[in-house]
């Protein structure tokens, strides 16, 4: 079985026929993989190099914790990968990005307007939670497609606050609006 696996912008093609011998980008690795009883922790020997990892499954990815560092890993089998390619969708690239509230809180300020260009790291929303003012920042360069909250609003965890997209997408949306109008 062939998998396409992505982590931190890198892509690996991993082929597993027998679990003890896998191919990563065509290169063989001797693997011994042992989940610990009771849970998320597993022991992995890769060419006898010993690693402990903790794995958690999320909506569309696996969280893998190794030596204190958290890796978000997306795994697709070859079939799903080809289907996605045919549809022109690839994981982790492009598309709209929603900035969500990481916790319940109160919106103290919205610093952007729809149509505004933002750079990655720019302050977008000030959220008060845990008695602190928290700055939520743009996770990418792009254009503000939608602002879904206003100053003074109470928001829930994971609620979408602002949607960012590509500049071209913003234009298309605008055109569509003009046509509709």
């Amino acid at each position, binding site marked *: 079985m062939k998998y396409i696996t992505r982590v931190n912008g890198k892509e690996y093609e991993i082929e597993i026929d027998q679990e003890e011998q896998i191919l990563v980008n065509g290169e063989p690795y001797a693997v011994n993989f042992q989940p610990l009883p009771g849970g998320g922790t597993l022991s992995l020997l890769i060419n006898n190099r010993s690693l402990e990892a903790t794995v958690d499954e999320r909506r569309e990815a*696996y969280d893998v914790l190794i030596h*204190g*560092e958290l890796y978000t890993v997306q795994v697709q089998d070859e079939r799903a990968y080809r289907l996605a390619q045919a549809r022109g969708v690839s994981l982790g690239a492009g598309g709209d990005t929603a900035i969500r509230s990481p916790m319940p809180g109160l919106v103290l300020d919205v610093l952007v307007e729809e149509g505004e260009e933002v750079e990655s790291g720019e302050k977008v929303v000030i959220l008060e939670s845990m008695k602190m003012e928290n*700055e939520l920042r743009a996770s990418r360069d792009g254009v503000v497609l939608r602002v879904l909250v206003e100053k003074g609003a109470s928001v829930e965890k994971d609620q979408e606050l602002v949607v960012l997209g590509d500049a071209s997408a913003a234009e298309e949306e605008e055109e569509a609006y003009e046509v509709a109008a």
Partner: protein
Amino acid sequence: MTPENLLVRKFDKVLIANRGEIAVRIQRACHKLGLKTVAVFSDADRTAPHVRYADEAYHIGPPPASESYLRVDRLIEVARQSGADAIHPGYGFLAERAHFAQACYDADLVFIGPPPHAIEAMGDKQVARATVKAAGVPVVPGTEPGLEDDEMIAAAEEMGFPILVKAVAGGGGKGMRPVHRPAELADAIAGARREALASFGDGEVYLEKMIRDARHIEIQLLADAHGNIVHLGERECSLQRRHQKLIEEAPSFVVDEAMRQEMGAVAVAAARAVDYVSAGTIEFLVDRDKKFYFLEMNTRIQVEHPVTELVTGVDIVQEQLRVARGRRLPFTQDDIQMKGWAIECRVNAEDPYSNFLPSTGVISDISLPTGPGIRLDTGVYEGYEVTPYYDSMISKLIAYGETRGEAVLRMRRALEEYSIMGVKTNIPFHQHMLESHRFLSGQFDTRFVEERFSMTDREAENDLEAAICATLVAHRQGQQASQIVAPGSRDTTNWKWYGRWRRMR
């Protein structure tokens, strides 16, 4: 001579008006001294360690602190109900509220802390400044409180920038704003007033000159009710973000024995000026020329007390309890020697790669670091939910070594071993800091984390290994496809469930 409104008396049962790791820490000291413990808990904390480890536990209200851990009437009532004859406030919550200490006194309960008037004097920044100044302690230049915005703006121009806007009732960085240019001052005053009003119900602010390249160095004190005050040396707490400390160590890289004794003597004088009893800390700003200025006094046990415990061998919480029972300190200043080096990393549920945003959720898996020189003070467990009701600190990881180098190496190893899943933690921040040249050479100040330290140059080392792990997990899950359900429809993840299912077979 016992200070006014402070009850100093033998007691046998202690109500701990707190939660989390500090409640557990206090229980440990109580058990060591043969004292019974009474825990209190909100709806969010029924299964928390501080409840499970206590001799007795009482429910006090819903999760918001204002309806539970801050309810003075409920706490006094539980003390009566349980027969507790003393209350330890821990840190945060009611620890530095003079009215709580007074309420304990009025209810004939021993308050394990300083007298109400000392809390009040040190809690009001301006009174504190005036009091210690009169005792000969150097203070940072600043304005009086109660000024109108335009008066403050005029005063700021006279003092020169940069300056700090600070809340009179503030603490922990709340209601505090640095201002570098005159044009930003009006906004900063408004923001600080707003935050101070929300956090403390008091929007009063004042200005203080900002000491550039300042280090935050503090002196730990212990005082008994017989007039003895001893300092336990310094802690270096410069590594902070938005005035929240992240890493503390003892001793400090820049303090030598002569400076230690000088700062210690000044700290003792400041405490004596308010008839201090119990554990307390005098915080100083230290400039590039090693001149130090009084910043504030914390009239409580502090989060970072363990580093001092490790280098002095003094159990500070135990001494707090003994002193509250009327005992004399069992040592004099000459008995206190710092030996070795200790470092503490505060492990918070925060994402260091996203501007330290708090991360809430259930801890789905946890394994703890152990081994020589490692101490972990924690209040969480597998299945614990990090909620927005309380602060984001999960635990304090403390490493001890004969030298700073040994402490750093032990800490690095412990951070690698420490695995927490379900919420994001700032462990990668600590790892990155402990590998940085600036940290290793001791070259940092209170602005370092915010202005000159970045996570973006951190290279993840195990991309390939993580990819292999996740793919093998996906592969096995695929083979067990009939057993897999949608995420969230079982109380544990598919992967964990798979592990358990496999074991049962």
